[in-house]
């Protein structure tokens, strides 16, 4: 016997505790099951790409802070790399190392948020998030020490970084890097072997690798599906080719695997930081670049492995001081492409966990 039921529409968001901002998921339900999902976004659209066309290359760096506001360093880095590629600027070695150090600290801070809010999506009452805030707080303190800002850092500049690190940075950073493995072990003991997290996320929101590649997902979402891909290794930028680290990959492509990949990336970031802090050379941190940048006409696409995936900036210059085209390849936005395939057939609680495991930031989705 089949039960007949009327399909009804549930709006998850834009005002909902677990949509990470103002994302709206319009779910058509048949009883408990989701039969259709439509993504509605743009509530946070600030037309960054248009605004950037009216400002100079240097003036555009603060815009990038406000894309993925949880990993501003990575955004600065990707944008500055694109401009440097356009101009053919070489960054001094110390600058490259500082960029790597900041980017990896930023990755830990971002993944702390991602794992914490993923656990909250599974129904934990804030505890993992608050624990992870401890470490994130220390990382943000390091940022504040270096550039005076905690979230919108505006630190990486064209040709290097804005300030060299202060003398108290190295002791604090070394102490933090020593402390982090213990902390990560603590999170693993709390979350990794938690049966409830397992049954909530195992085999939920499965993304097969073929679809993951076809749908252009990147970052932990792609690696969670078992695809061995990391731009830090595939297309090494800065000094990643001189650092030793592994790529964590999942084997099932479910929410639990994406969570595992992020958890392991914390450890790998700590490994990178240990080496980078050790190898940090002396010298100048940045080269002098003219304030009035007039890149030659042409185009450049530079990309990095941001915490959320492949973050790329595509710049087209017509020789004037402002970009003719400023395109952001934002990982949060493109990782949402297969969301519908992942959530159809699930229930609302599973859909929420799936969305949480993709780890989006609306500033970057809507731009």
């Amino acid at each position, binding site marked *: 016997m089949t039960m007949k039921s009327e399909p009804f529409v549930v709006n998850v968001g834009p005002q909902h505790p677990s949509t990470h901002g103002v994302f709206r998921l319009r779910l058509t339900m048949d009883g408990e099951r989701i039969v259709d999902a439509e993504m509605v*976004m*743009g509530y946070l*659209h600030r*037309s960054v*790409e*248009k605004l950037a*066309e*009216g*400002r*100079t290359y240097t003036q555009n760096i603060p815009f990038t802070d406000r894309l993925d506001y949880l990993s501003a360093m990575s955004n600065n880095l990707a944008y500055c790399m694109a401009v440097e590629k356009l101009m053919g600027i070489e960054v001094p070695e110390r600058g490259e190392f500082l960029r790597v150090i900041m980017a990896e600290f930023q990755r830990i801070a971002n993944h702390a948020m991602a794992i914490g809010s993923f656990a909250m999506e599974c129904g934990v009452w804030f505890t993992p998030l608050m624990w992870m805030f401890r470490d994130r707080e220390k990382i943000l303190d390091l940022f504040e020490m270096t550039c005076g800002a905690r979230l919108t850092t505006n630190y990486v500049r064209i040709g290097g970084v804005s300030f060299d690190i202060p003398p108290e940075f190295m002791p604090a950073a070394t102490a933090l890097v020593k402390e982090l493995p213990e902390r990560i072990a603590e999170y693993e003991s709390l979350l990794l072997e938690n049966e409830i997290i397992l049954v909530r996320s195992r085999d939920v929101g499965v993304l097969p690798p073929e*679809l993951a*590649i*076809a*749908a*252009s*997902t990147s970052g932990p979402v792609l690696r969670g599906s078992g*695809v061995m*891909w990391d731009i830090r290794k*595939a*297309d*090494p930028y800065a000094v990643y*080719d001189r650092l030793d680290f592994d790529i964590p990959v999942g084997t099932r492509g479910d929410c639990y695997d994406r969570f595992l990949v992020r958890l392991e990336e914390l450890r790998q970031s700590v490994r990178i930081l240990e080496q980078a802090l050790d190898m940090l050379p002396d010298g100048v941190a940045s080269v002098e670049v003219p*304030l*009035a940048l*007039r890149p030659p006409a042409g*185009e450049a*696409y530079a*990309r990095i492995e941001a915490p959320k995936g*492949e973050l*790329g900036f*595509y710049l*087209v210059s017509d020789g*004037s*001081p*402002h970009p*003719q*085209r400023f*395109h952001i*390849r934002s990982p949060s*936005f*493109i990782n*949402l*492409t*297969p969301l519908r395939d992942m959530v159809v057939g699930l229930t609302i609680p599973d859909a929420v966990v799936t969305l949480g495991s993709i780890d989006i930031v609306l500033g970057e989705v*809507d*731009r």
Partner: protein
Amino acid sequence: MSRLLDGLEVGERIGQRVPEAVVEATPRWVVVHPEKLVAVATYLRDEGELDLGFLIGVTAVDQLDHFEVVYHLQSISQNHVLTLKTRALDHKNPEVPSLVSVWRGAELQEREVYDLMGVRFAGHPDLRRVFLWEGFAGHPLRKDWMEMPGGLTPGLGRFPRED
């Protein structure tokens, strides 16, 4: 390091397979004719040596008299990249074929390009605006989106304190 595929060489291979597709080929990119775009894309994806199965991104550039749609392609197994371009010559009503059937990843990005740049993608399963609301006047990333008084366009002509 991801190897940058030589556009000239790839252009030649495309020309052998899909005749009259290549409009222009430089070492850094290949420009193909919009009508042959789907065939070229399918060839690039399926050809064993090229294996460009991963669409990094889709975007469009307003070149004032025409639109250039840019596809960044990546091969995960071979680790090389290629920039594929196509041109929509009608600046009033630009239209190129959709590549959703080749790469699912184009789905949201083509909607974004349509929303902000106004390039129509023929054959897209669900071509609606993604960030702006239905009924928004015009497509803001176009250079002629907002004519300012006196024929000025938004943006800087020169650096503020340059002279």
